[in-house]
């Protein structure tokens, strides 16, 4: 099975966020970046499918030069090769524009399966995989926790709300968006890191893919959220704060 995993590099979860001078996005200088969490699960699912059924795992990402280490990390975990769509204006493209880039890179590869994470930790739109399926004219399913290969295609476990699940059968080739938590993530081994250095990373520029980049949806401005409640912050060392909080829960909020 030939599997393409579309991954995204995003700011680290704990990164300090500062809004940029134009209030259009966050200040990117000095930010630490990491592999998007659900994309890590998509990669893990791909690697496990390859271990069971053989084949090839190709990672695909769009982004500027800084995505290099994230590609190396995926290769070190076991992906066979990578395609980097070098794109400095990723943030100016909407979900459809980004999916168009990815689709243009996927098409000539003719994969049996395309996996992506469910959503990115930065924009959180959760649309890339679904749009990609439509652009490639492939069946898809989203929020997938488990993938089984069958004689006729795949049986996947889809998460629903409030603890419910559904099994869905679909033919291959197909696109799946993977939910976090379905597998245990592996770490890159020293040997893996060493081997990754020799693996192929093919770079293609966004311009070469020649897709429509004009956005139909624009992010005009970002702002810090306003508080929904007036939060009483309780100062003091842990012992003082704990005593003051219990006092307030008992006599002010009356919930103890």
């Amino acid at each position, binding site marked *: 099975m030939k599997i393409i995993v579309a991954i995204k590099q995003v700011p680290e*979860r704990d990164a300090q966020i500062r809004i940029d001078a134009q209030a259009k996005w966050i200040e990117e200088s000095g930010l630490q970046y990491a592999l998007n969490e659900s994309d890590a699960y998509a990669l893990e699912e791909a690697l496990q499918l390859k271990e069971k059924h053989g084949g090839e795992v190709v990672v695909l990402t769009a982004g500027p030069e800084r995505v290099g280490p994230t590609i190396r990390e995926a290769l070190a975990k076991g992906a066979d090769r990578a395609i980097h769509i070098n794109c400095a204006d990723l943030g100016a493209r909407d979900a459809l524009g980004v999916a168009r880039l990815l689709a243009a890179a996927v098409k000539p590869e003719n994969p049996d399966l395309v996996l992506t994470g469910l959503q990115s930790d930065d924009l959180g739109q959760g649309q890339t995989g679904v749009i990609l399926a439509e652009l490639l004219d492939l069946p898809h399913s989203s929020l997938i926790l488990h993938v089984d290969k069958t004689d006729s295609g795949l049986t996947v476990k889809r998460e629903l709300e409030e*603890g419910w699940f559904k099994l869905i059968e679909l033919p291959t080739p197909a696109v799946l968006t993977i939910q976090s938590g379905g597998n245990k993530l592996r770490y890159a081994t020293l040997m893996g890191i060493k081997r990754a250095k020799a693996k192929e990373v093919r770079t293609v520029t966004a311009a070469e893919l020649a897709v429509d980049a004009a956005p139909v949806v624009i992010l005009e401005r970002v702002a810090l959220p306003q508080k*929904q409640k007036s*939060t009483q912050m309780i100062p003091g060392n842990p012992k003082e*704060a704990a005593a003051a909080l219990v006092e307030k829960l*008992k006599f002010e909020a009356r919930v103890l």
Partner: protein
Amino acid sequence: MSGIWVVIEERDGHVSRSSWEAVAAGQKLAALTGQAVNAVVIGAKTEGLAAEVATKALGKVVRIEHPLLAAYTADGFTLALQQFFAVEKPEYAVFPHTYQVRDYAPKLATRFGQALIGDVTAIADGPVFIRQLMQGRLNGSYRHTGNGPCFVSVQAGAFRADEAQAGAAPVSVFTPTIEPAQIRTKPGERFRGTAQTVDLGAAQRIVGVGRGIKDAANIPLAQELATALGAELGASRPICDNGWLPMERQIGSSGQTIAPRLYLALGISGAIQHLVGIKGSQCVVAVNKDPDAPIFEVADYGIVGDLMEVVPALTEAVKAAQQ
């Protein structure tokens, strides 16, 4: 292009709560734009659902009905709505931001060369659509600039279901053309993962654990506090993903919805998937090392500090208060 169409979702034979919220969002959009607001229901048998929807202040209610729409599939729902919208040419299409909508609305929008503005929390003049970024740490203002319908889905709880205004709407039927071969996926019946033995929904006090607990070995610290409070222990998704607590203790959109008198969030940053599950809590207390964590925006009381120090101190203080 004209009009606003709200796409209604069914839950257990009735209009889902989040669909009423989407109706309220559609009416808000109608007030801002001066457009008429209508609704569609989709399925194989939609008469009852349409009758429910027709009790609201809507221009029209349309039943999109076809035997192949009995079970939800992305292919079927996309095809049906594509054909309907091709006729109606709406200016706006409004959806509840459910797992089902996330599965097909981006596909539908793509057919019209548009992109969904998903998980919207507010609609302002313009119209400008507000949605959260960076795990709830930022708000983004989005505007639709495309030449085609504007597709929007609204976050659960962002609009009030009881604000959907009452009225009486005429009902009509639209029959899409769907061939069995066009539906490529085959869904099974829904099922529960494991028997739910923990009903967090009924608990009066809950202690929730998040990433800030750092290690499985630290879970007992939270358990001791829960025991002292007579509280149930719950967790955010990553804790259950890691297997540090069982899945049945997960709070949030993919886990349980809670409504306790007291919810104590330990090391939970407050991603929206968690916050939608705790909305019914009467009193929320947050302990987190990051003073900018979004959880503090919804908390009544907050302590900024190290869980390893604050949690044992809280356990002691609770025990002392009980003596």
